[in-house]
């Protein structure tokens, strides 16, 4: 599964595993069936994981484009009346001030228990650098179409 905009990819198995773990983290933070969860992330595997995790946790995804300017971002967040927001972006955190958002969950928070419990195959640092570190698990489109793909 590859994002056409960024070229970042994630396998179906990784997505299933990461989103399942993330769903557990969301439930632990109080997300219940029918709750609206804001997601304000740049396009990429993290967004996919977060979206699937919210759905798996029984929530309703309220996506907020990360590139919105502060005022619009604030309006979106206020309108959602969400209790939980998934974001790592400082401007989204600021915009959540004075909203109903209780908890802001970052991508590393969503995979909190993963490194300890999951085999190395699934260990991925989703938080990472810019925009995502390319460890063995999450790869770019060029990786996928590079030598390994040919070997496959």
């Amino acid at each position, binding site marked *: 599964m590859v994002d056409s905009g960024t070229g970042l990819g994630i396998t*179906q*198995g990784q997505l*299933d*595993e990461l*989103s*399942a*773990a993330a*769903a*557990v983290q969301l*439930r*632990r*933070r*109080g997300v219940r069936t029918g709750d609206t969860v804001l997601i304000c992330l740049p396009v990429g595997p993290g967004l996919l994981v977060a979206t*699937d995790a919210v*759905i*798996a*946790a*029984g929530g309703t995804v309220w996506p907020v484009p990360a590139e919105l300017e502060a005022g619009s971002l604030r309006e979106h967040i206020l309108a959602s009346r969400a209790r939980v927001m998934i974001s790592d972006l400082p401007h989204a955190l600021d915009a*959540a*001030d*004075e*909203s*109903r*958002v*209780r*908890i*802001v969950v970052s991508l590393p928070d969503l995979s909190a*228990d*993963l490194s*300890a*419990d*999951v*085999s190395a195959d*699934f260990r991925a640092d989703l938080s990472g650098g810019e925009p995502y570190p390319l460890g063995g698990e999450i790869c770019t489109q060029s990786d996928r179409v590079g030598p390994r793909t040919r070997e496959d």
Partner: protein
Amino acid sequence: MTTHVQHNLPAEPNRFVGRARDVAELCALLGQQRVITLCGVGGIGKSRLSLQVAAEVVERFAGGVWLVELARIGKAELIAHRIAEVLGVRDEVPGRVLDGLRARLRQADALLVLDNCEHLVDRCARLVAALMADCPGVRFLLTSREPLRIPGELIWRVPPLELPDEEHPHAESVLLFVDRALAAGARAVTDDMDDIVRLCRALDGLPLALELAAARTSLLSPGRIADRLKNRFQLLTTGDRTAPARQRTLLATVEWSHELLRPKERMLLRRLSVFAGHFDLDLAEQVCADGGMVRACEVLDLLNGLVDKSLVQRHDASGRYHLLETIKQYAVERAREVGEEAWLRDRHLRLICEAQERCFAAGSLAGRMPWPARFAYFGRGRSLLDDCRAAVDWAMESGDAPLGLRLCRATVTILAMRGDLAEAADWLERLLGLDLSQVPPDVVGVAKGGLAYALEARDELARAAELIVESIEEQRRHPYSHWLGVSYTVAVTVFLRTGQGDKAARYLQELDEAATAHDDLFNLATARMAQLNLALFQGQVRQAQRLGEEALALAEESGHRWTIARALTHLGAVAEARGDLEAACAHHTAALPLLRELDNRAELARCLAKLGRVAAQLHDHATARENVAASLVLCRQTGQRREMVRVLVALSVLAQSEGDLDGAVLAAAAASALRESIGQHGNRARTHELLTLARARLGETRVAALWARGLEQHPDEVARRILDRESRPPSPSFAPAPEVRCSALTPREWEIAGLLTRGLSNRAIAAELVISPATVARHVANMMDKLGFASRAQIAVWTAARGFRPGGS
């Protein structure tokens, strides 16, 4: 006073309204997170929410739920002291209070609620991180305008109360407003719900703003309040105009409420801001009434007016009052604005100093007053400690060394009687660094003596010796006072400890003569006890016995129970030395209730350990075990490592008496290691005797191995081994111990679990079962929840281990 109180949460002043889901979620989150910080602007209800959550989880924390209010702490270094005070940890070595906290909390399943951390965020962060690392069972619930930003912290943003809309006209904010308006005596307040809805919206659902507005509904209708506030928001005259909207809303509401006050109420409110924490009417009258604008006889009425307007909180049970932090800050600003701050704080310092001096004089150690009357003054003095801290800070800031040192002089005795001197040492160090040219020399002399007293406790003997000599030289130039007697005692101790027996004897002689001449029963009894120690050291047991009896007679004449308790424990030591163990037992037993009454836990722990040791020698193992165990609990609670050494020694004696030489050696080694770690010297004779016996019975190699093990083991482990009937602390209620039950899964979940063992993706499983991938994902999340797992892989492994195959049952 050693009863197990499992929390110190205050009774709620009124009904908690709304936030049911928030409370439930936070209670659940406390099961998973070790640090939760409730963040939000002032007046949003962080503290109240934290108290509500804390009250709900009290039964889940075997080690208690402890509220630590930090708003009144001005200096970051006092946070640890404040926590220690709440937990009953005594600062045995000044400056090492964190060690005491670690010892207290290392094995505790406790929740610490740190309220109002915002002004001390950095130090709070370091302290919380340190305690998290060393105390695995401790969790923190904090309230702060700013998060700590430490690893593992869950930042929980407290929102305002829900606002009403068409679908939810009875939102939380409306319910709170109506509840408080009815409590304020408003009639027909719900007649015009539209106005209430308008007002709640105007106030952004901020609980404090709603309370302030509701308090006015007996005179103004909600509609009129809403109109006035609307104008107020436009004309906000104080504070930062660029502040966030909620902050401005609150400020405007406080300002509006303040302006509706009568001039005298305003004056009282700003003067009340000088108190560090809770205060009573008496103190308010003394500090805030000036005989002019505000007379003492008016204060009660004015105070009640402020309570009715929700600007001051009253605790009916204790008859004490306090200001919410937001209101206090506003009132401090007003005092500053009218140029009253320095006058007010000067007045506070002077009156707190005089109040403490009255407590000291009335509860005096030397007099012959009935004990209950004196004890009440002792309690009163302790209740002023928060204000003493604030007053000492002001003495430093304003350079008022004379009053600051007088305040210390009065307070030191109150602190010492409960076994806490460490904090006073810090006050004295700071104040003695000021310009002392205006301070009466005898006051400086006493202050140096007080500092020497505290330095001796932390083994800084050279400096203590220097200071105590200066102190006594100065005090000798003035008429005799109780303080000179105490200074002599400190000198005796310091010079005995530094091997200068002659000097010690000279000071002891002077103490005896001076106390006798001035009929100072406290110091005379103390002199007898010092003479007793000297006689015991020289092997003159009969002489020691005579001195002990004299000390007790003097103590009984004075009626002061601390002195009586000390005389009794000294007599116990003499009886033990002459081999009359039953008499020793009786003396120590008699001292216990007195020390309990004083809440002097360090001396109580010591007395219990001694009693346990004596009972063990009498082969009364049940009594020994009971007392040593009680001492151990106190040592843990108070973080007293010196007393823990005594407990270990008592355990060693107990084990030996029971014929358990292994245990005796282990405990002796653990005592030795602990003694070493705190730089304390001990009596090696008993250890030597024990090891000689053990080597003869168990062999050199085994004893060496046991000794090495004892040095390494934690004192608690050694204690458990010997006390072994002591019940282990219950496992934390939050410990993740998921009872995995096959019956927890539904047939569909079993089906999916089976397919997971084949390594299928959600999409593949969905195709196989003809359901959507999202449904599969939800089933997987449900299974992880039920089984306490964090990954799909774990479900697969768990399912495979149960021999479940796809298509099987």
